[in-house]
């Protein structure tokens, strides 16, 4: 069946009308996370967890929040693309439980096999839902440096997020590393639908990967794009600005950021983030030139951006610190 909007809508309507089918699909859910999912937010129907932002392209908007028991790790965007033969998932949420809800949403829309689970980068809010897809035996796909980065941080990510989420919301969460490492632009075929995976140079992290749906011109940018949520710099500020400058020249219909949105016009969506990075870089360079210190920079740089972002106080100073250590070697 071609992935036209009407076909998807019909399938969804059908699934909603036949609960037995849903149960059947839910039986592929692994025992590891089903109990954790069982008691969660039954009032939210699976299909309203995502929005169809382009024909056959679905996105979930995570909360703009830090990990907390109340949000169960639902603090980042995720999505999926449906081809004629298979589904590709892009990011899986911040816990096995959220991954399970994404899985449920997929199954409310299509019974096609989940062939690929793609992570846009290593951060826990984007990869911790992977466990919910293991039973589907997809290829787990990531930038070739993702496994190294995530493995080195695994213990810390797990312990910190377990503490922040609490045992219950964290249940079933574990590290699932990529089985398919992407080091050059790579096309995946979902059956009459090609998606292009493009690994980036160090920017937000050293393992950013973007996913481009050729049919609709939709690009999942992961955390190369933040909206509303304060940006977090865990790679290179110069690299990040360069990647954005390249991407903003490309003809893209719409993008899905890692936080905020979830469907945004391009290149307009990049403007606030690009501005934030430029402000930080400019002010830090001026301070370095004036022989000011790292601690002085953390107290003054970029404060004009405060009102533009949620969670500014949780991330901004760290961004300044990282950018300062990078730029002082220019």
């Amino acid at each position: 069946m071609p992935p036209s909007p009407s076909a998807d809508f019909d399938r969804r309507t059908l699934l909603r009308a036949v609960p037995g089918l849903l149960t059947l699909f839910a039986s592929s859910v692994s025992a590891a996370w089903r109990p954790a999912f069982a008691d969660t937010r039954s009032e939210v129907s699976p299909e309203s967890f995502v929005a169809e932002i382009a024909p056959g392209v679905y996105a979930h908007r995570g909360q703009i929040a830090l990990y907390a028991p109340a949000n169960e790790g639902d603090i980042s965007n995720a999505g999926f693309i449906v081809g004629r033969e298979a589904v590709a998932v892009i990011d899986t949420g911040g816990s096995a439980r959220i991954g399970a809800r994404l899985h449920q949403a997929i199954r409310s829309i299509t019974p096609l096999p989940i062939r690929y689970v793609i992570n846009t980068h290593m951060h826990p809010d984007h990869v911790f839902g992977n466990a919910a897809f293991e039973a589907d035996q997809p290829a787990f796909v990531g930038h070739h440096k993702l496994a190294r980065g995530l493995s080195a941080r695994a213990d810390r990510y797990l312990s910190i997020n377990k503490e922040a989420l609490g045992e219950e919301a964290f249940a079933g969460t574990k590290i699932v590393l990529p089985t398919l490492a992407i080091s050059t632009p790579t096309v995946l075929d979902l059956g009459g639908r090609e998606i292009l995976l493009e690994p980036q140079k160090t920017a937000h992290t050293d393992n950013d990967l973007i996913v481009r749906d050729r049919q609709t011109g939709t690009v999942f940018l992961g955390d190369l794009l933040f909206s509303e949520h304060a940006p977090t710099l865990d790679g290179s500020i110069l690299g990040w600005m360069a990647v954005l400058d390249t991407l903003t020249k490309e003809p893209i219909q719409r993008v899905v950021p890692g936080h905020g949105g979830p469907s945004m016009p391009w290149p307009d969506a990049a403007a606030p983030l690009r501005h934030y990075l430029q402000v930080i870089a400019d002010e830090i360079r001026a301070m370095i030139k004036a022989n000011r210190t790292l601690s002085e920079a953390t107290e003054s740089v970029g404060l004009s951006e405060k009102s533009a972002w949620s969670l500014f106080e949780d991330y901004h100073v760290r961004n300044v610190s990282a950018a300062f250590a990078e730029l002082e070697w220019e």
Partner: protein
Amino acid sequence: MVHRAFTTRLSSLKVLVAAALVVAGGWTGALAADEEDIWPALQKDLFGAREAVEDTRAVTLEAPYRAEDAALVPLTVRLPAATAATAKKLMLVIDKNPAPLVADFTFGPAAGAGERVLETRVRIDMYSNVRAIVETNDGKLLMATKFVKAAGGCSAPALKDTDAVLAEAGKMQIKVLANTADGQREGQLKIRHPQYSGLQLNQATGYYIPAKFLRVIEVQRGGERVFRMEGGISLSEDPNIRFTYAPGGDETLVVTAEDTDGRTFKGQAGPKGS
């Protein structure tokens, strides 16, 4: 004497066990560890029977209460002129780090009169007291203490390509900054070095990257010592030190450094404007 205490501490069973626990426990112990005051035992290890006296008029320490990046925590120590005049050494200590003695600076004749300021960046492994301790010429120990909330700094992943990092190791930038208010010079020293802590995993091999760090940094102005630093794994990657020093006839700053592999690095800077 302090150097010996440092080596002893590094090699002592207690510290190795602590480090192993810290590695295995994934830093969840940060809060629980606050319950125990380990300073009395640490003080004894460092100074024997001598007691360091908290004296915030003689030495001040600036540190963020909550460090946003535990692998890069800026510390600034200020010694008023009266303290600087009799200061023989300055020690930076982080109680709960696997190697608590961060660095030990021995001042020389070119360290300068007037207020003496020294700023550097450190790794902090769990919520801990951080201390700046001055040893005076007559053996007194004057201390300033700050509590810093930070965790994970010593095991923060070293993700850059090891070969590339080591190839760049030792690259220096030495800058002479503006004079201080009381006519002293101020300099800044940056040295590229991975400062491997021995607590960082190499994912490619599955083994911990062996410790490799700058052991000694000596700074001289016109052939006279400003300071000689002996340091360990708690000094951040790419060590960065800002320091005041005395003006003199020969304004050339010469920096020599040596890492734990015995590799030596050298750099120099002429007087400002030359």
